[in-house]
């Protein structure tokens, strides 16, 4: 676009020909009122509020839909512009109830702000106002559509960003109503953004309804840590409680959107199951005690079982990867200082000899630019919503996307779905590699000699070879694939040969942080699954909930519950199971209650401060670990704040874990395989305690999907249960495998 000069309110401004006027005024800090315009959405020019006067044009023009040309002279403040804006304002207020005193948007309402400036003191409209009947569109969004000014931002958000048009305008003229068509209301995983884009109080946060005024709260930047994106958010707090989360702006991470789980998970912070005081178990009875008593008890227990008799190898340290990098760093430092190498965060992996090693080498902004993507084993829309959003943008600008999945999920963009059973994936990828190597006349390795590429392999290879900027994404469904390591290595090989980037999405939240601080056993240490087979004497657990977190939940619970095993649990939530096996319960601060950092998929260390103090006696885990280390008289734990911990590890090179395992395609399982995924709103402890999310349509999903043939093989029918989960017979699942998406606990998973 050519560089041009235009004149706005007498001021010469540089612009590009064809830019919209409102983009320029926004950039130059010239205020033009608007309701329907949103920089990330298409232009509808329906509210008419941004009218300005352009010299030589008889009628005022909407600046959101007017492209500029050289020499254009624009007046945003002259009499004509002001009069037009005031006239539009008067029309918009005709049907608006002006119920600001009882409206949640009051104080942060675009309509209210603009009305103060452009509205009249007195209404000339004496006729009856339009009223729209209330409708319930789900547990997350509260509607008061009488307040709606028909800007259609929510409608455009749905069709353009969420990729599912759920809201629409029905009726006509005065009867026009913005509403969803389906009875279940709004089900998008990004639906909460409609609250942010709504310029009035028509769509507001349901969990936050009638809680507070926006000016009563303190708003601070933070990071939501439910997935690999680490979305930037504002945490809004009042009297020591997080009251609301709204999206922050960061083009490199989440643009200006956040997923619903990032937005509503804060509800879990005040759940009645929060662990609030330190407790010790004396003769089978729980006793609430002071911190120093609990910590002494913990030290004594660890000393008696493992430390005093040089048995640090009988101690195991396990942490959830939803914790902060600082917490993980301190915990591994503490364990290694006392000579313990048994530590792990990869709790949900069935076989760690088959662990996935694959690097992520494409940043989110670059993901939008790919021209081909191959997704393997992921329902990205629910598992990594913001990464899916970037991929959707790539698809809309022409990228060709293929998904290799056990089930045809509800994708929100056009892609080629290839149904595969888990045991077919490695063979298909081996076929792809063979074709690629043959095309490049590279000598074939031994393991490919017996492979004869299937038609799927041919198609996949063709797409990858034809692409200029391909990416291969490996998802969480693969972690417990019997050939997981081989699959990851085949992907790495293929990527190397075709010049593709890779993204490893098989890990959760802050697993990259855990990897960076080396929260995995070295050669002499035991991994999580080995620990449960060995005769351990003590465990230190960091925010672990066995019934959800472990693949081998039953053996984990058994090992932790043994009579002579001493278990120290640092937890943010308590439950019967945790109480059953623990000997000490140390209450830890949850998300937004502690300072620290997360390493996201861009490999950026995103730091955050504590938004609120942890409730009651709960303390940030890094402080607890520091004091534990001090009590154990370990050197090098003189931290005054978490930033000092960060400084210690941030410049350490990230630990590489690329133990090259030989690709082995011989192990062909013919059994019916099960891919178990947590419901997207039950994937970590905080989410599981967030009530509104659990009540939502997505949070309610609990099904074991299989096709009719598989059901017949398993002698199951509709209404039965498989591994305790209701059976859902659908032909969208590949033959002879089961896809479980469950909001239940998983101690059933070890059966599979």
């Amino acid at each position, binding site marked *: 676009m050519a560089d041009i000069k235009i004149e706005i309110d007498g001021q010469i401004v540089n612009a590009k020909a064809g830019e919209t006027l409102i983009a320029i005024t926004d950039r130059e800090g010239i205020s033009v009122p608007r309701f329907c315009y949103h920089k990330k959405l298409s232009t509808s020019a329906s509210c008419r509020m941004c009218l300005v006067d352009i010299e030589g044009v008889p009628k005022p023009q909407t600046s959101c839909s007017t492209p500029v040309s050289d020499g254009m002279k624009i007046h945003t403040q002259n009499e004509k512009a002001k009069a037009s804006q005031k006239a539009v304002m008067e029309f918009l207020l005709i049907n608006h109830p002006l119920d600001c005193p009882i409206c949640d948007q009051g104080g942060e309402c675009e309509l209210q702000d603009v009305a103060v400036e452009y509205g009249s003191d007195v209404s000339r409209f004496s006729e009856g106002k339009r009223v729209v009947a209330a409708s319930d569109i789900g547990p997350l969004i509260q509607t008061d559509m009488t307040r709606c000014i028909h800007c259609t931002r929510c409608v455009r958000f749905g*069709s353009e960003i969420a990729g*599912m*048009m*759920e*809201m*629409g*305008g*029905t*009726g*006509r003229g005065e009867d026009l109503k913005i509403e*969803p*068509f*389906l009875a279940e209301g709004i089900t998008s995983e990004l639906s909460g953004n409609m609250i942010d884009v709504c310029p009035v109080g028509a769509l507001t946060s349901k969990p936050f309804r009638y809680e507070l005024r926006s000016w009563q709260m303190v708003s601070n930047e933070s990071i939501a840590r439910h997935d690999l994106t680490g979305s930037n958010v504002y945490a809004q707090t009042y009297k020591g409680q997080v009251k609301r989360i709204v999206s922050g702006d960061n083009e490199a991470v989440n643009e200006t959107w956040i997923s619903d789980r990032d937005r509503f998970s804060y509800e879990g912070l005040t759940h009645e199951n929060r662990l609030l005081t330190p407790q010790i178990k004396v003769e089978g009875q729980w006793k609430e005690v002071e911190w120093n008593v609990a910590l002494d008890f913990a030290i004594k227990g660890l000393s008696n079982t493992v430390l005093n008799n040089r048995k640090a190898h009988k101690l195991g340290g396990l942490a959830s990867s939803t914790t902060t990098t600082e917490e993980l760093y301190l915990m591994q430092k503490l364990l290694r200082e006392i000579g313990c190498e048994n530590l792990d965060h990869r709790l949900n992996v069935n076989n760690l000899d088959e662990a996935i090693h694959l690097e992520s080498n494409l940043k989110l902004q670059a993901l939008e630019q790919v021209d081909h993507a191959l997704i393997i084993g992921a329902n990205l829309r629910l598992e990594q919503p913001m990464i899916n959003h970037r991929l959707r943008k790539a698809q809309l600008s022409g990228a060709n996307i293929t998904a290799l999945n056990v089930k045809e999920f509800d994708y929100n963009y056009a892609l080629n779905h290839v149904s595969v059973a888990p045991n077919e994936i490695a063979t298909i990828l081996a076929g792809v590699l063979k074709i690629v190597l043959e095309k490049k006349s590279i000598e074939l390795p031994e393991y490919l000699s017996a492979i004869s590429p299937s038609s799927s392999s041919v198609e996949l290879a063709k797409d990858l070879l034809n692409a200029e900027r391909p990416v291969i994404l490996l998802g969480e469904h693969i972690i417990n694939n019997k050939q997981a390591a081989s699959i990851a290595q085949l992907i790495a090989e293929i990527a190397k040969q075709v010049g593709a980037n890779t993204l490893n999405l098989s890990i959760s939240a802050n697993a990259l942080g855990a990897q960076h601080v080396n929260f995995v056993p070295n050669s002499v240490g035991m991994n999580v699954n080995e620990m449960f087979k060995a005769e351990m004497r003590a465990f230190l657990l960091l925010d672990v909930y066995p019934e959800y977190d472990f693949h081998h939940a039953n053996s984990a619970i058994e090992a932790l519950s043994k009579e002579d095993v001493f278990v120290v649990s640092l937890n943010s939530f308590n439950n019967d199971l945790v109480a059953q096996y623990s000997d000490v319960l140390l209450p830890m601060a949850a998300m937004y209650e502690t300072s620290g950092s997360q390493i996201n998929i861009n490999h950026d260390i995103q730091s955050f401060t504590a938004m609120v103090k942890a409730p009651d006696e709960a303390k940030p885990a890094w402080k607890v670990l520091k004091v534990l280390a001090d009590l154990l008289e370990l050197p090098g734990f003189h931290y005054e704040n978490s930033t000092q911990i960060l400084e210690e590890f941030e410049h350490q090179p990230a630990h590489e874990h690329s133990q090259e395992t030989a690709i082995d395609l011989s192990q062909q399982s013919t059994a019916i395989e099960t891919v178990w995924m947590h419901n997207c709103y039950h994937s970590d402890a905080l989410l599981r305690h967030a009530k509104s999310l659990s009540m939502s349509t997505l949070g309610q999903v609990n099904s074991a999907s299989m096709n009719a043939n598989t059901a017949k093989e398993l002698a199951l029918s509709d209404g039965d249960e498989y591994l305790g989960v209701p059976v859902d017979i659908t032909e969208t699942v590949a033959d002879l495998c089961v896809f479980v998406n469950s909001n239940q606990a998983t101690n059933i998973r070890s059966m599979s």
Partner: protein
Amino acid sequence: MISDNAKKQIDHWIEKYPQGKQSSAVMEALKIVQAENDNQLTHDSIQAVADYLNMPGIAAAEVATFYENYNHKPVGKHIIRFCHNISCMLNGADDLIAHLETKLGVKTGEVTKDGLISVKKVECLGACVGAPMFQINDKYYENLTADKIDDIVDGLQ
């Protein structure tokens, strides 16, 4: 939900548009499905049309609720569409609508108990020269008076 015959008719309209733009046929498709279902569109039939044209249900509903000639409630065998726009209004349409309502014992938007006649107020039908006017099914009746309305309505079977 959509009969084979209706599908055939809809396909005829889909063919008129470029490939992948099948949703352009939504107005005709709604009309065809309505004609087959007692002159009425239900939530399910709108969804069925949307599914058939591979478009969101709400997008089909937006069209179906925008135009007067899609019916969302049961209608009579005969539909009287009474114009109440400016020319007809100036020529006494409002009084005549009231007369018709009293005669049939229904309000506009309703259907007579025997299911024979429904009355709708509609916007300009482009027959201002003969205002006041209404349309019964596909036929226009112009220069209406109370007596004339009585005659016409009494003749409906």
